[in-house]
């Protein structure tokens, strides 16, 4: 009769078995929870890998598009002297060589100023290079406006490197005795140099 369903021992056995079953259920639930968490973690990592891979692919495509779009122009600009180091003596030779022979006498003189770093908004995206501005001021006397226009056009076409006409001043001399010197000209050109050498820039900074 000890094995009766309603004896203390049987009830204890039942409780033990049920407790064991509950513990097994809890352990199984914990294990499955861990398994699911692991699967979710793996899925999240895979999603991150997809995201990074897509970013990489997009970046590669963007780079390819940038290269296709700008490589040709870059090569052309390099051939035209984009990366040539600036030298005042060479710049003086360039300037003098650019002046047409018939107008050579019209130039009174020129000054190539100190190098100055250019930090305008145009260079905001450029981090691999620094832009250095080299200013050239010259004065001349011409007989009329067309001659001045020819001079400036010739300079624009013939001066090598990245140059820009920064400004000009024309003054008519009404008391001049000859027509050949009726207009006094004062102009400024700027050479832009792309350099990655900061030490060189420091040496040429204003005040040195």
């Amino acid at each position: 009769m000890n094995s009766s369903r309603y004896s203390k021992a049987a009830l204890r056995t039942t409780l033990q078995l049920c407790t064991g079953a509950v513990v097994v259920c809890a352990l199984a639930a914990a294990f499955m929870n861990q398994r699911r968490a692991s699967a979710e973690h793996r899925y999240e990592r895979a999603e991150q890998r997809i995201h990074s891979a897509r970013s990489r692919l997009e970046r590669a495509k963007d780079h390819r598009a940038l290269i296709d779009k700008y490589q040709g122009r870059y090569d052309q600009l390099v051939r035209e002297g984009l990366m040539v180091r600036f030298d005042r003596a060479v710049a003086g030779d360039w300037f003098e060589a650019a002046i047409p022979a018939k107008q050579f006498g019209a130039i009174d003189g020129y000054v190539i100023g100190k190098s100055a770093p250019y930090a305008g908004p145009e260079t905001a995206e450029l981090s691999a290079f620094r832009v250095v501005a080299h200013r050239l001021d010259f004065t001349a006397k011409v007989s009329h406006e067309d001659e001045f226009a020819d001079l400036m056009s010739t300079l624009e076409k013939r001066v090598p490197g990245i140059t820009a006409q920064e400004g000009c001043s024309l003054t008519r001399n009404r008391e001049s005795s000859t027509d050949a010197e009726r207009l006094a000209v004062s102009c400024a050109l700027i050479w832009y140099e792309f350099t990655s050498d900061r030490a060189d820039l420091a040496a040429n900074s204003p005040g040195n």
Partner: protein
Amino acid sequence: MNRRNHYIYITAGSLACYRELANGPELVASIATPRNSSRDRDPLDQSMQQFETHLDVHPHDRYFVITDTQAEAYQSETVPTLSRRDLRLLLTRKMEQRYRATPYRSVVPHRSRPYTFLRNLVRRGPRSTTRILYALISPDTLAPWLEALERRALDVRGLYSLGALMPALRTHLKLPEKADALFVLRTATGYRHAFVSPSGLRFSRLCPYSNSGETQLGQEIDKTLQYLTMTRLWGVQGRHRMLHIAVIDAQPSSVPLTVPGNNLRPTQLTQVHPRELIPGGPAALLDDANSAWLLFNRAALREHGLGCAAGLGLSDASRRANYRRATLGVTAAVALLGAGFLAVTEYAAREKIELAATSELIADHVNATAEASEAAAPKIELQPEQLRALVQTRDRLLARNVSALGLMQRTAIALAPFPDLNVDGLEWFYVDPAAVAATASAVARPEGLPSVAPNSLVLRLSGHTGANLSKSDANAAVMQLAAALAKELHGRESIEKLPFDVAPGGTLTGTLKVGAAATTDFRVAVTVPAAAEHAS
């Protein structure tokens, strides 16, 4: 290990063991028992040895002990509606009072869920009910056999009284639920009578075989009816329900059975052979004197699950039964929830794993595509972004380049309508950021220039008016020239000096002498914003 159900059927004169095999119960042992065990010690020892030998052959079976002896006593008691705890205490006290000296006094014919049964009775109307309590009042006849089972610690599933099991016949015989029934079952010892009302078993007794022969059955039924009437259980005012008398006999008498009755005591007699209850049962067993029906009726055993609480107090048995039921229920619920959780979690985990595997494949594919794209890209010395920045910076810097020819042409167009205005000077420059402006000494910006945005182009024109113009016309021509220049260059004009001062705080000095003309200089400026200048 071959576990099977094993039924030990104990009567006053014999002990029969039935073992349930694949084709049904089979008689495996039949042991004669002495009528008076205290006096006939030797026959009892032989029977006990034979019984123990039989038990040793089947140590793993599940044993069901069914008693059909005169040692079972029944006592009707009216049990009021009480709380569960009070009911338990009341029943325990009554059992103590009635069956004080019996070790099996707690075997009561309550249902397996007595309190639920009583609650249902209360819900149906009566505030109290008459219950029957019973016990083994002379356990000496059973003790040797039960002790043999206990010594071996066999799996005894229950100790059942035959009378307590007989209400289950109501369902088998399809009797009306509201009718009274008297079941008469022929066993090896005699006739077992059980009176069952709609509320359950109310009376049971064993009628041993006598010398009356085939008339004994009718006489005993008449005695039982007289007893029921006397105890007001049946046939009295208010209890005139039809009495169904069912006689279950494997060896029916040849004498027609008659039951005395009158209008106040309507009865209906039915004679049943066990094979009608168990159509597929083995003939040898069905024709046996013992209750073959019981051996097939597992439902009756289950219904009287509390009957196995021999040796236990009612409260303990009931409480443990409830604990066991609750424990099993909770465990089943937890297991069900756990299984559901496991299934759902496993499904979700598998889904995630499949998704992760697919995502990893996609990532590998995209990575391979990216690598191929990177490998296919031409090798350059700069980062592509810096390549673009370099080219764009160069273009933006050169966008500041002034076209001298263009400026002069537009100025000439603006000047054309004013032949009396003579130009003496023309200058243009950029309003630079501070770093570049600091070095622009040669083309310094004059004072009085309105503040403009950096990179705007300033064009300044100075001159004098002709002598033929009146003062007002000269001033008007200069103002019109400034407007024309601004329109031509898409800029904003600024008159820095008029030929003749018209300001409220100014002065105008004139002379009428010939050859002493007044000063007629003028100066205008146009500021062209960077965007407009680029557009032009």
